[in-house]
């Protein structure tokens, strides 16, 4: 038999039918449902008079429009209130489990799925959210879909899909101190561009991965979509298995042993063929920050904002001119000279316990700059509880951060955590698109330690240049 990649194996094990036009009907094992992409999917069920094929395979939670302040108060925005109300109503009507807003398990879909053991190696997992690639960190075939496809999954448990090509991202060496998997994925996007992996499933490979936590791996896979790939994968290993053991929805007893046997075979065959291969030398990486309005507008922190003269193509120059104007930046200025108004630590990219620990280590015993407002937003109630048990909330509060309730928060301008027009953020989220954090808002993406350092200094800074002790 031909050598197979991990993606090929995951795909093959879920084919219900191959069609002669090259597409396949793929079985979907797990579906995460959130309030923004599901109302129309449910409405279409009602209109067409269709039922849910397997209610137990769906898990719902509200995250995007949820305020991160006091949960005991009603939601002020009537639209957000109505959308969350609709999710409650729909999940009740169709018998789908929904995690309530005041439940400790509530949080961002891509944080709670893994946390609950809903995400498992070898499954197909979808959600009406492009950052579903996150779950590929467990060796799951996980990808984002639109609302109509959510409807299709609810009604049929299947999707008709075209098979992706394979791209290997070979990570060589090991990461220097204060350089994280956020920097790895940002550097990859900088290297291949936001459409560099379109049509491909990414698989991250390399010895270093074995030393990385699940949190670090999830950050890596989370932003595969920002390189154009719907799927980002890491083969499951001992770290994955240790992480999953005992999780509420993970298999137990005999089933655990049976699953373990299956999971251990989930890796690309040696010498499996990849359509494309990209190499990244981890030893040479430094902290990265974005300067523009696309994740590919990214450079090491020591660099300078590109100048118009450096761009030859006319359309590209026009875009750069527009970007610099939108971002309020001059070509040639040092990235370290960019002052920020707000700092956001959180999101499905970097809102997990390890991210909060790393950021807390930077701000412990120090104060944020007087000109900065800073938010630390745990990705879930479980993350929040864990952080509070470790005293991290107090570390952030003492430094001048706000400590919030879980949700998507300032990653997406659908809740009260926003940038005002012209305001600038250092953000651990995943998209620096125009208006993403609020109309007219200016976003610089970076890792949690870099965002924490920016909060202390009031401007972008290399976290490794902070003086010890504070």
């Amino acid at each position, binding site marked *: 038999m031909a050598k197979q990649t991990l993606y090929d194996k995951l795909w093959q094990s879920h084919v219900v039918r191959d069609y002669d036009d090259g597409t396949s*009907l793929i079985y979907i094992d797990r579906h995460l449902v959130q309030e923004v992409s599901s109302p129309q999917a449910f*409405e279409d069920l009602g209109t067409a008079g269709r039922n849910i094929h397997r209610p137990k395979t769906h898990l719902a939670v509200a995250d995007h429009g949820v305020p991160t302040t006091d949960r005991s108060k009603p939601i002020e925005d009537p639209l957000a209130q109505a959308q969350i109300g609709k999710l409650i109503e729909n999940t009740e009507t169709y018998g789908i489990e929904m995690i309530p807003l005041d439940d400790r398990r509530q949080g961002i879909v891509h944080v709670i799925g893994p946390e609950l053991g809903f995400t498992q190696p070898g499954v197909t997992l979808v959600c009406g959210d492009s950052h579903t690639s996150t779950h590929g960190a467990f060796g799951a075939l996980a990808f984002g879909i639109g609302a109509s496809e959510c409807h*299709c999954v609810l009604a*049929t448990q299947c999707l008709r899909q075209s098979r992706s090509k394979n791209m290997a991202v070979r990570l060589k060496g090991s990461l220097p101190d204060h350089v994280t998997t956020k920097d790895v994925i940002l550097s990859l996007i900088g290297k291949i561009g936001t459409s560099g992996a379109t049509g491909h499933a990414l698989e991250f490979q390399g010895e270093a991965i074995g030393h990385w936590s699940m949190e670090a791996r999830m950050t890596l896979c989370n932003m595969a979509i920002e390189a154009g790939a719907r799927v980002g994968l890491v083969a499951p290993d001992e770290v994955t298995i240790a992480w999953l053991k005992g999780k509420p929805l993970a298999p137990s007893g005999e089933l655990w042993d049976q699953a373990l046997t299956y999971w251990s075979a989930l890796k690309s065959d040696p010498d499996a063929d990849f359509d494309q291969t990209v190499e990244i030398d981890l030893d040479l990486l430094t902290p990265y920050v974005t300067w523009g309005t696309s994740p590919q507008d990214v450079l090491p922190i020591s660099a300078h904002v590109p100048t118009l003269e450096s761009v030859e193509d006319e359309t590209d120059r026009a875009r750069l001119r527009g970007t610099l104007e939108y971002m309020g930046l001059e070509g040639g200025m040092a990235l370290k000279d960019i002052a920020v108004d707000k700092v956001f630590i959180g999101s499905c990219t970097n809102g997990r316990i390890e991210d909060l620990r790393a950021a807390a280590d930077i701000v412990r015993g120090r104060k944020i700059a007087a000109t900065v407002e800073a938010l630390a937003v745990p990705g879930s109630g479980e993350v929040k509880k864990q952080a509070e048990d470790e005293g991290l909330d107090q570390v952030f509060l003492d430094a001048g951060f706000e400590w919030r309730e879980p949700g998507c928060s300032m990653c997406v*301008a659908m809740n009260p955590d926003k940038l005002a027009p012209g305001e600038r953020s250092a953000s651990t989220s995943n998209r620096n698109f125009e*208006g993403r954090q609020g109309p007219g808002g200016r976003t610089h993406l970076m890792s949690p330690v870099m965002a924490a350092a920016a909060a202390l200094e009031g401007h972008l800074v290399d976290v490794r240049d902070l003086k010890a002790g504070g």
Partner: protein
Amino acid sequence: MEPFRTIQSVAASMPEKNIDTDIIFPARFLLILEKAGVGKYAFYEKRMDAKGQPRTDHVLNTPPYSSAQILIGGDNFGCGSSREQAVWTLADFGIRCVIAPRFGEIFYANCFKSGVLPVRLGETILTPLREDARAGVLFSIDLEQQVISTEHGARHQFEIEPRRKDALINGWDETDLILNNEAEAIAFFQVRQKNDMPWLYVDE
């Protein structure tokens, strides 16, 4: 879904690369529950000024392009968020066909669900087509023949997956097709999977 056969229209050109779905449909409008009537939010921050009035310098506010059914985008059009509202807003605005060198994958798949035809054409073909678009020339799209042509004599074949072409031409709904044709195959798959991977069927 409305069947798609041929359209004739001027084309609006938006050559900028990497127009993401946050640009096409800003996040704050995602709180709206209705699908109908979302066309007014298309490219909102670009198309409207701070007071919510149409900007006269935006192509989609400028006749004849304000009623264009064809949009020629730049490379990687529709990248980013999976929000299907990005397609609903274009469809509701009257756009039936988007042409670009490459598309964001989820956006591309979403297009077909609302009867919008995404066409991939290389930049070398698109450059003269953009000129025709700016000249206000009438474009024709014939999905059956897979041909795009203009009054100025341009004529290009385009590729489209056969099943997607059939679905567009006939206005078929994929969920219907799967329910009608594949129920047995799905049931068969489940029996096998439940036997091989029983841990995925706990409490069912």
